[in-house]
C-alpha cells in the first residue's frame, strides 16, 4: 500500500529532534511538510510584527533546510479544518503526523483534526517533543493534580526517568526515499507569505534583533555551550539587560530548538566538567520553569484568566484603560519601566528581572491593573510568549497563584538602580534622558529644574511626570493584597504581612467567625504548619525516592473551595452549594435580583472543606486499591485527614451551639 505522509508543522519548526516528522518519513512513499496559516486571521490576531517576522523567518529557514534535502515546505493558506480535507483528497494522504500540543486550545483543535482524519481514513501519528516530560505523567505522579509549587514540581521531576534523548536531524538519505514531486508553480501556491501580505507596514522597520529559524538556534546553542557560564555559576551577578547573542528562549518557544537537545547538551557538559554523576536540577533552570507552567496549564482552559480559573486568587483589580496604555507604550514617567517596555516593543525580548519589574508595576506594585491585561500586551510583543508560560508567569508575578509572598514589591526606581547603576540601559531605550546624570536618571522628576534644562529634557514637557506616587501606591496595594489574603489565610497562610494581628474578631459579631480563624494571633502557626507539611514531606535529596504527598494540592483545593465557592472575591459565605462538583466563581456576572450574599453567620466554608476531604479520600481509596505500594503513607494521611475532619466537626458543632 502506498503511504503518503503529511507532516504538519505548528510549533516544533525544526528538522532535528522531531519525532513526529520521523514518523512521517518512516516507510513512506511521499512526505510533504505543511504549515497552515490564515493570512486574514493573522492580521486580525493580537500578535505584533516582531513575532510574525520571527515566525516567517523560521519558516524560511525550514524551507531552505528542506530545499537542501530536495524537498520543500508547503505553506497552505486557510484554517486547518478547511485545509486538511482538501489536502487529504488532493494528495491522496494516508498518514498525518504532528507534534503533540499540550495546551488546552491546541488539544481541542488537534482533537477535531484527528477526528476528521479518521473520517478520511487517514492515520494520525502524534509525538511529544515540545516538553521534556510527558506532562500527564507528572500530574499522575502528583495524585492527578498539577503541582503548584516549583519545589514540589522539582521533587516530582527528580523522581522521573530522564527525558527521552533527542533524535538526529532528518537526513538526505531518509528524505530521498520519500520525495514527492515538487510542482513548477510551488512558489505561487505554497510560498511563505511576506509581512505585507499579513497586513503589516514594513517601511522603516529596523533589522531584527532576534532572527528566527533553526539554523540560528543551533548557532546560538553552540555559542551558549561554549560560554559555559551556567556551569561555573548558575547565579550570574551582573545580569545583562540587553538581548544576548546566546539567548534561546524565543527559539524554544517556536520549537526552532528542541528542549531535549538543550537538556542533554547541558547535562553532558556538566558531567564532563564537574565529574559528578548527575547534575542538580538547577542546571536546567529555565527549561524546568517552562515545563512547570505547561504542566499547570495543560488541563486548565481558563489558565489565562482570573474568572473561572481554579488556581487563581480573585483580586479586585482596577480597570483603567488610560493607565494601561501608558504602561504598554512606555509613558509611565518612570524611566526604568519605560525603557523596559520600549525594549520589549522594539526587540521582542526583555530580561526576566525586567519582566518582574514591569509586571509588578502594572499589577500589585503600583497600578493595580489586572495581570490579564499585561499578559495580553506580552502576548503581542514578546517573542517567547507561550500561552502557558506567559499566563503562568503573570499569575506568579502578580501573586495571583502559586503561593507567592506578596511583601516583596519592586520599586520602579530602586530596583532599576540596583540592576543597572550606570543608567546606560535607560539612555539607550529612552534617549531623551541621556544627558541626565546617574543620580537622577531613574527619578528625573527629582532633578532640580536647572539640571533638567541643561539636560534638554524638562519633566512634564519633554518626558512625562511619574504617573503615580510609588510610596503611596505601594502602601495602598500592600493593604489591598492583605485584604485579599487575609480572607484566604485560614486555608493557607501565605504572607508575613497577612499575619500581623488585629483585634478585629472581637469587634465583629460572634457568629460571623470567619475572621476569628483567619486573623487571630493564634492562627499563623497552624497555617504555617500547613506549608511546612507541604515542604517537609518532600524528599530534599533528589536521589531518594520518598513518596510525594499531595499536601500542597490539598491546600490549594481548600483555597479553591474557599474563594471559588464564594460568589465574589470577598469573604462572603459561599453562594454555591456543597454538592456542585466544580464550583466556579463568576465575579463579573450579575447573577439575579439578589446577588450579594451578606456576611451572615456561616460555617459553610469549613464544612465544605470536609466535603472536599471526603472527595479526595474516596478518590485515593480507589487509587489505593490499584497501587499497594502507596498504602502505608496513604493510611497515615487518611488518619490525619480523619482527625482533621473530626476536629472540624467539633468546631462546627460548638459554633452552632452559640
Amino acid at each position, binding site marked *: 500500500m502506498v503511504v503518503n505522509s503529511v507532516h504538519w508543522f505548528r510549533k516544533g519548526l525544526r528538522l532535528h529532534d522531531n519525532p513526529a516528522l520521523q514518523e512521517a518519513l518512516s516507510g513512506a512513499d511521499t512526505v510533504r511538510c505543511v504549515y497552515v496559516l490564515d493570512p486574514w486571521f493573522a492580521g486580525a490576531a493580537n500578535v505584533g510584527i516582531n513575532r510574525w517576522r520571527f515566525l516567517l523567518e523560521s519558516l524560511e529557514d525550514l524551507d531552505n533546510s528542506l530545499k537542501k534535502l530536495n524537498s520543500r515546505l508547503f505553506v497552505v493558506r486557510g484554517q486547518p479544518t478547511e485545509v486538511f480535507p482538501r489536502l487529504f483528497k488532493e494528495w491522496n494522504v494516508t498518514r498525518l503526523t504532528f507534534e503533540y500540543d499540550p495546551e488546552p486550545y491546541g488539544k481541542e483543535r488537534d482533537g477535531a483534526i484527528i477526528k476528521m482524519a479518521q473520517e478520511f481514513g487517514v492515520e494520525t501519528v502524534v509525538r511529544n517533543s515540545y516538553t521534556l516530560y510527558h506532562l500527564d505523567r507528572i500530574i499522575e505522579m502528583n495524585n492527578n493534580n498539577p503541582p503548584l509549587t516549583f*519545589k514540589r514540581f522539582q521533587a516530582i521531576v527528580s523522581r522521573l526517568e530522564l527525558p527521552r534523548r533527542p533524535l538526529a536531524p532528518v537526513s538526505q538519505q531518509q528524505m530521498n526515499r520519500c520525495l514527492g514531486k515538487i510542482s513548477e508553480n510551488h512558489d505561487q501556491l505554497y510560498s511563505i507569505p511576506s509581512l505585507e501580505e499579513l497586513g503589516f507596514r514594513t517601511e522603516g522597520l529596523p533589522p531584527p534583533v532576534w532572527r528566527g529559524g533553526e539554523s540560528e538556534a543551533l548557532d546560538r546553542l553552540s555559542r551558549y555551550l561554549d560560554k559555559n557560564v551556567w556551569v561555573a555559576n548558575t*547565579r550570574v551577578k551582573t545580569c545583562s539587560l540587553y538581548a544576548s547573542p546566546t539567548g534561546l*528562549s524565543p527559539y524554544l518557544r517556536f520549537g526552532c530548538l528542541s528542549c531535549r537537545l538543550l537538556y542533554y547538551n547541558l547535562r553532558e557538559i556538566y558531567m564532563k566538567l564537574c565529574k559528578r554523576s548527575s547534575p542538580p536540577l*538547577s542546571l536546567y533552570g*529555565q527549561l524546568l*520553569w517552562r515545563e512547570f507552567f505547561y504542566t499547570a496549564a495543560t488541563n486548565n482552559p481558563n489558565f489565562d484568566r482570573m474568572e473561572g480559573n481554579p488556581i487563581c486568587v*480573585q483580586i*479586585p*483589580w*482596577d*480597570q*483603567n484603560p488610560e493607565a494601561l496604555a501608558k504602561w504598554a507604550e512606555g509613558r509611565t514617567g518612570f524611566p526604568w519601566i519605560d525603557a523596559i517596555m520600549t525594549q520589549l516593543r522594539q526587540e521582542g525580548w526583555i530580561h526576566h528581572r525586567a519582566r518582574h519589574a514591569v509586571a509588578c508595576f502594572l499589577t500589585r506594585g503600583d497600578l493595580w491593573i489586572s495581570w490579564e491585561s499585561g499578559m495580553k500586551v506580552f502576548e503581542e510583543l514578546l517573542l*517567547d510568549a507561550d500561552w502557558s508560560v506567559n499566563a*503562568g*508567569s503573570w499569575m*506568579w*508575578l502578580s501573586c495571583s497563584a502559586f503561593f507567592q509572598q506578596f*511583601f*516583596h*514589591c*519592586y*520599586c520602579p526606581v*530602586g530596583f532599576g538602580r540596583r540592576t543597572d547603576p550606570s543608567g546606560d540601559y535607560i539612555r539607550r531605550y529612552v534617549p531623551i534622558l541621556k544627558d541626565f546624570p546617574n543620580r537622577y536618571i531613574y527619578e528625573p522628576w*527629582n532633578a532640580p529644574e536647572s539640571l533638567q534644562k541643561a539636560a534638554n529634557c524638562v519633566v512634564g514637557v519633554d518626558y512625562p511626570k511619574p504617573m503615580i506616587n510609588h*510610596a*503611596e501606591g*505601594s*502602601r495602598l496595594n*500592600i493593604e489591598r493584597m492583605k485584604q485579599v489574603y487575609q480572607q484566604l489565610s485560614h486555608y493557607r497562610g501565605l504572607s*508575613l*504581612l497577612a499575619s500581623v*494581628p488585629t*483585634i478585629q474578631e472581637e*469587634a*465583629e459579631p460572634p457568629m460571623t467567625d470567619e475572621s476569628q480563624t483567619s486573623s487571630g494571633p493564634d492562627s*499563623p502557626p497552624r497555617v*504555617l504548619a500547613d506549608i*511546612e507539611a507541604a*515542604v*517537609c514531606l518532600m524528599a*530534599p535529596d533528589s536521589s531518594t525516592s520518598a513518596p510525594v504527598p499531595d499536601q500542597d494540592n490539598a491546600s490549594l483545593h481548600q483555597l479553591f473551595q474557599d474563594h471559588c465557592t464564594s*460568589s*465574589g472575591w470577598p469573604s462572603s459565605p*459561599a453562594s*454555591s*452549594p456543597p*454538592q456542585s462538583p466544580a464550583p466556579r466563581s463568576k*465575579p*463579573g456576572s450579575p*447573577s*439575579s*435580583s439578589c*446577588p*450579594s*450574599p*451578606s*456576611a*451572615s*453567620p*456561616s460555617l459553610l466554608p469549613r464544612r465544605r472543606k470536609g466535603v472536599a476531604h471526603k472527595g479526595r479520600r474516596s478518590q485515593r481509596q480507589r487509587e489505593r486499591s490499584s497501587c499497594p505500594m502507596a498504602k502505608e503513607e496513604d493510611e497515615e494521611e487518611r488518619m490525619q485527614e480523619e482527625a482533621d475532619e473530626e476536629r472540624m466537626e467539633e468546631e462546627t458543632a460548638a459554633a452552632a451551639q452559640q
Partner: protein
Amino acid sequence: MKRIKGGEEASSGESPPEACKKLRREVSEESEAKAAGESPLCDWSLLPQEILLHIFQYLPLLDRAYASQVCRVWNEAFHMPELWRCFEFELNQPASSYLKATHPDLIKQIIKRHSNHLQYVSFKVDSSTESAEAACDILSQLVNCSLKTLGLISTARPSFMEVPKSHFISALTVVFVNSKSLSSLKIDDTPVDDPSLKVLVANNSDTLKLLKMSSCPHVSPAGILCVADQCHGLRELALNYHLLSDELLLALSSEKHVHLEHLRIDVVSENPGQHFHTIKKSSWDAMVRHSPKFNLVMYFFLYEDEFGPFFNDEIPITHLYFGRSVSKEVLGRVGLHCPRLVELVVCANGLRPLDEELIRIAKHCTQLSAIGLGECEVSCSAFVEFVKMCGRRLSQLSIMEEVLIPDHKYSLDEIHWEVSKHLGRVWFPDMMPTW
C-alpha cells in the same frame, strides 16, 4: 407552584444553584404528596422558626431569596432580623471593576425593610467616584439603625477621597449620631476630619474599641488626640505617622485607658527629603508600662535618606515593614533599638551584604520569629549563623534565592540543608521564575 415559577422568572435566565433546584424539587414533591393525601406531618412549612432560622443562616443570600419564594412561612423567615444583622454592600461599576455589585433593588429593600436590623456593615467600593458616592448615599439613609461595626473599604484606588468632603462627612455623621454604640470603625483613605471625629466621640466614646484611619489627610494630631482622650476602651488604632505624637501616646497610656493591643503606624513620604518629627523614648516607655503586650506595627515607605529621625532610641516596635529601600545603617540601628521585634520585612537594600546587621538583629531581637528579605544581599555563612542564633523560633523565613551569596563555606545547593537543620524543618529559599 405559581410562586415557584415566578421565582424562576426573577432569576433572569441565570440557572439557580443546584441546592435550590433540589430544595424546590423536594418541596414540590412534598406538596404533590400532600395533594395525594399522604402524611401531612411532613409539611415543611411547619418547621419551627428557630430551626428554619438556623438553616437559613447556612444559606447564602441568593439561596435564601429563592427559598423565600416557596411559601409564606419561609418568606417570613427570610425577613427575620437575625438574618440581616450583617451586610456587606459591594459597589462596583462595570467600567472600573471586574466584580459584580450588590443589586440596587436589594439595596432599596434593605434600607426600607431592614435598616433597623443592620449592626455589622461594610462597604466595598471600587475605584470609581460613583461607587463611593453610592456608598455615602446609603450611609446617609441609615438613620434608624444602630451599627456596631462599620467598614469603608476601597478595593482598588481610594475612591472615597474623590467624593466631595461635605457629602462624605454628612453621611458619616449620620451613622455616628444614630449609632451610639459603634465598636469598630474602619475608615482608611477617607476624607474624615476633626469635627466629625468629635461627633464620633460624643456619641460612641464608651463603646469604641477599634479605629482604623490610615491616610486620612483631613485629620490633625489634635483630632486623634481627642479620640484617645475620650474613648477609654480603644484597643486598636491605625493611623499615619504625622498623627502620632507624644501626647497621643501618653493619652493612650493614661490610667483610665484600657490596655492598647495594637497600634499600626504608616510612615509615608509625600516628597523626597521630607522631615519627620521624633517621638520621645519616655512616651514609648509609658506605653509599654501601661500595655506591656501591645503590638506596634510600623510600615515604612520612605527614601533611604529620610530615616534620620527613626531608630535612634529604643522603640517597642513588634512588626516592622520596610516597603522601600532601607539602608544598611538603619538596619544596624534596628538591631540595637528594637528589643521587642517579632516580624521584620525588608523589601530592598543596597548592594552591600547585610551580614553584621542580621547577626546583630538575631542577638538583640530575642522575640524575632518571622523575617522576609527581598532585594538584599546576605552571605550564605552569615545567613546560616543568623538562623542558628534564632533557631526554631523562626517560624516564617522567606528569603529570595538571589539574596543569598554563596561563599567559601556554603554553596546555594548546600544552604537549604544547613538552614533546615537549624530550623528543624525543611526549608528552601523563595524563587522567582527565570523565564
